[in-house]
């Protein structure tokens, strides 16, 4: 679909345009939810469960009510009419356990909210929370978490394509690897937050909410509170990161909304870091196992996978399904494979409920598959790169064993380019020389494909997909252009990207295009921002809407200039007649005529210079790339230093290469965190052990190397203007590159590695055991 309507000369799309978002952020002028101040606003703090499993015997809030500054206390009774948090997942056989806003009878994880205290400020609210007396009886470990799920296993899917057993029976070489992918925490610098404000005069509930999906959050809040969707407005001035952690509806939000409605005052809850780490947006976690059958020439014949995710205390909502489903369905990756069997599912536990997190599921399958390929190479006595070359899909389209249709990509080209950039051949010599001196160097290569732009035609990872996305383009009386998007950027610079595209349609500069997002009252319906979809949907929707408005503008110009349509051109904010520099009309004059000049209005039929348009890609888009990493392992301490990371990325046509590279770098940083640092720990009693950023290690500047980036551009067939969408791929493929590099450095001791992250003590133990 290379149908970008380049009515004007292409001047902005494809360029490294500086972001429109930046000046506000750099000067402190940009507001995030936590910066919004409303008159008479109150603050909310939660009383949370200190234990992983207990029956609540009493909840005494009287003490809290008498704390100075406290204006109200909500317990289960006040939330009794609120529906459980909305659940969009429909999977046959899933045993769902809905999340009640404040459960009342029992608690199932440390940090589960049991009461909410509202006060003049956060200090008083926390004083109030401290004065609530929660009495409980611990529940025996042997009692199920939920009665309907006696063994904790709430979902399992088993499926096979091709004759897997026969392929394994005939195989010359079978390799198997089990890896525990750790639980991590999404950890945007801005945690979650809401300000709820109820207007009793017309019954509208306004929620300032840090969310990736304003329109779905609106629907979810309305549903939970039994309000018409039209009576809820969700808006968010700016979002300080999200990474998947702001896709879900939290019980905390519903408590704030109920408090605002009951108290008739704005109520703010801002998740603090301790809350975010204890009971916030955790992600990943899978017990993952993969087996592969190869011929003796290294041809991959079959794979079997098994994934079990411990998704925490409730089995409802997207976070409880997406990790293990995407993991299982993304196993084939970029390798030719005719037979594949999967066995995947989830169990509930006394941990915080899982949320989606960048690279969801894909990280697990990618890491395990690439480690297994290295294992197979060693077992077969074939070079690791050669083994991949023998099995990689050729550049172009590909239909996987799971019938996923990849659009054409540069699978092999990106792979070879990455090898060239990292100097694979030269590295092997360097590695051998270093080994002779007792130094442990290693290299890892991770070719990846990423399904992005998921619309109705394809859900991720065997999950049913649906979507509905629009954009609105308008020209006002002054000739100024406004674009309204239902997506919501949390760092990806959507406003800049959309402005670049629209600027080219109307021959203006990006600065002249105002882009609105993050407000259900000012934007048309859409699913929001997740899964690398926004680039595809922004390009698709704004091109459709912009075309309608542009056509009207040109018709107005035809009337005013008395010119034939084929002679008109858009130049520098005007419409003019080709070859006649004096016959030009500025957009403002055209807009004025469309509004007020009767003969122009009559010609236009509907004279409004605004259009909303719908877009749904016919099939998912597919970005790809390869990540290569070189590491050095300290043989004494087991510490890992990353020497180089090379990324070759192909996300189709790049609207703003600077932003694409920013997403690559950030994704790599997330991947390094997963591979080497981040680990959420519960002790054997279900108590969280990593509840501050001193214990939960996020990558710092000194943990990351410079990242070398190169691009291939294979335009999308399914996304407008060739845009494929990206941002999860580098995050999901980096751990494989780093882990393979470390295992290479410590080979053959890498066989002893059973879990991520690769902490120094884990590596040192493996080295000393060999």
């Amino acid at each position, binding site marked *: 679909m290379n149908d970008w309507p380049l009515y004007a000369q292409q001047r902005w799309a494809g360029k490294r345009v500086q972001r429109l978002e930046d000046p*506000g952020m*750099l000067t402190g002028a940009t507001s995030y939810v936590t910066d919004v101040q409303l008159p008479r606003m109150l603050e909310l703090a939660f009383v949370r469960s200190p234990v992983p499993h207990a029956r609540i015997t009493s909840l005494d809030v009287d003490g809290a009510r008498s704390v100075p500054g406290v204006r109200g206390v909500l317990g289960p009774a006040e939330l009794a009419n609120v529906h459980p948090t909305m659940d969009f997942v429909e999977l046959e056989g899933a045993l769902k356990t809905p999340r009640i806003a404040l459960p009342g009878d029992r608690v199932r994880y440390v940090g589960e909210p049991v009461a909410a205290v509202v006060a003049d400020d956060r200090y008083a609210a926390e004083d109030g929370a401290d004065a609530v007396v929660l009495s409980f009886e611990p529940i025996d470990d042997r009692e199920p978490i939920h009665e309907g799920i006696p063994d904790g296993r709430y979902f399992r899917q088993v499926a096979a394509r091709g004759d897997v057993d026969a392929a394994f029976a005939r195989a010359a070489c079978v390799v198997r690897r089990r890896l525990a992918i750790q639980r991590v925490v999404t950890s945007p610098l801005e945690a979650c937050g809401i300000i709820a404000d109820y207007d009793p005069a017309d019954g509208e509930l306004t929620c300032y909410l840090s969310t990736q999906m304003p329109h779905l959050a609106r629907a979810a809040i309305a549903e939970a509170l039994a309000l018409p969707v039209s009576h809820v407005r969700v808006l968010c001035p700016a979002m300080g990161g999200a990474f998947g952690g702001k896709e879900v509806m939290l019980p905390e939000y519903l408590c704030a909304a109920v408090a605002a409605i009951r108290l008739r005052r704005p109520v703010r809850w801002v998740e603090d870091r301790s809350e975010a780490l204890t009971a916030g947006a955790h992600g990943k976690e899978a017990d993952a196992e993969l087996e592969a059958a190869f011929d003796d020439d290294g041809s991959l014949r079959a794979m079997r996978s098994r994934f079990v995710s411990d998704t925490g205390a409730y089995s409802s909502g997207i976070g409880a399904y997406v990790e293990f489903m995407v993991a299982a369905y993304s196993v084939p990756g970029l390798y030719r494979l005719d037979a594949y069997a999967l066995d995947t599912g989830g169990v509930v536990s006394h941990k915080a409920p899982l949320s989606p997190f960048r690279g969801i599921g894909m990280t697990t399958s990618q890491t395990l598959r690439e480690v297994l390929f290295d294992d197979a190479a060693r077992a077969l006595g074939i070079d690791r790169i050669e083994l991949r070359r023998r099995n990689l899909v050729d550049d172009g389209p590909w239909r996987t064993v799971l019938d996923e249709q990849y659009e054409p990509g540069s699978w092999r080209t990106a792979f070879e380019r990455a090898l060239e950039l990292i100097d694979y051949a030269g590295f092997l010599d360097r590695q051998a020389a270093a080994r002779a001196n007792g130094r442990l160097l290693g290299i890892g290569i991770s070719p990846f494909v990423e399904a992005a732009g998921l619309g109705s035609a394809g859900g991720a990872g065997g999950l049913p997909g649906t979507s509905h996305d629009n954009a609105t383009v308008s020209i006002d009386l002054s000739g100024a252009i406004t674009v309204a998007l239902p997506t919501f950027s949390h*760092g990806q610079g959507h406003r800049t990207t959309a402005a670049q595209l629209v600027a080219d349609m109307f021959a203006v500069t990006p600065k002249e295009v105002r882009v609105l997002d993050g407000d259900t009252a000012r934007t048309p319906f859409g699913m929001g921002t997740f899964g690398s979809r926004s680039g595809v949907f922004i390009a698709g929707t704004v091109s459709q809407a912009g075309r309608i408005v542009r056509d009207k503008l040109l018709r107005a110009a035809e009337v005013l200039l008395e010119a034939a349509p084929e002679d008109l051109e858009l130049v520098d904010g005007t419409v003019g007649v080709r070859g006649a520099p004096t016959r030009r009309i500025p957009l403002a004059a055209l807009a004025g005529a469309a509004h007020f000049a009767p003969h122009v209005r009559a010609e236009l039929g509907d004279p409004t210079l605004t259009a909303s348009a719908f877009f749904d890609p016919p099939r998912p888009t597919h970005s790809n790339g390869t990540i290569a990493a070189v590491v050095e392992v300290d043989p004494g301490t087991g510490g890992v230093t990353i020497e180089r990371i090379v990324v070759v990325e192909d996300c189709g046509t790049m609207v703003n290469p600077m932003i694409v590279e920013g997403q690559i770098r950030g994704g790599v940083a997330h991947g390094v965190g997963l591979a080497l640092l981040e680990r959420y720990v519960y002790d054997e009693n279900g108590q969280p052990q990593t509840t501050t950023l001193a214990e939960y290690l996020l990558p710092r*500047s*000194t943990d990351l190397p*410079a990242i070398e980036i190169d691009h291939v551009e294979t335009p999308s067939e399914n996304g407008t203007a060739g845009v494929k969408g990206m941002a999860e791929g580098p995050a999901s493929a980096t751990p494989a590159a780093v882990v393979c590099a470390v295992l290479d450095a410590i080979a053959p001791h890498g066989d002893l590695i059973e879990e991520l992250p690769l902490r120094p003590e884990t590596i040192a133990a493996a080295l000393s055991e060999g």
Partner: protein
Amino acid sequence: MTAISIEVNGTVHELDVPPRLLLTDILRDRLGLTGTKIGCAMGACGACTVLLNGAPVRACLMFAVQASGRSVRTVEDLAADDGELHPLQRALREHHGLQCGYCTPGMLMAIAPLLESGQPLEPDAVREAIAGNLCRCTGYETIIDAVVEASRP
């Protein structure tokens, strides 16, 4: 309540504050200077970094009363009154050294005193200098590039 006198971005404020009020909260809630962000409230992330008598401090680890009699400089004071960005702000923009923008004010205030020394900075020195400021979006490299460039005459 305790009476304090605190100079913020060149203006002296005489205020009565509860002794336990944090410097972050007086800046953000009382003075409306919400550019200073709160990321962890325990000194681990650096998002709340401001200058106290010219030196970077974590505003989340200080009580407002501790800043009494001293001068505080926040991100709002970096750009010129006419809106022209500080060279460091400009460099961050040019190098795409920010994405969500939430760590950016703290990052800027951690780096500003280094730049004001007038010495050209090497990448490794900058990498060390910002090791106390977490950014979850950029991978840091573009921030380092920006600071190095801004430090060169």
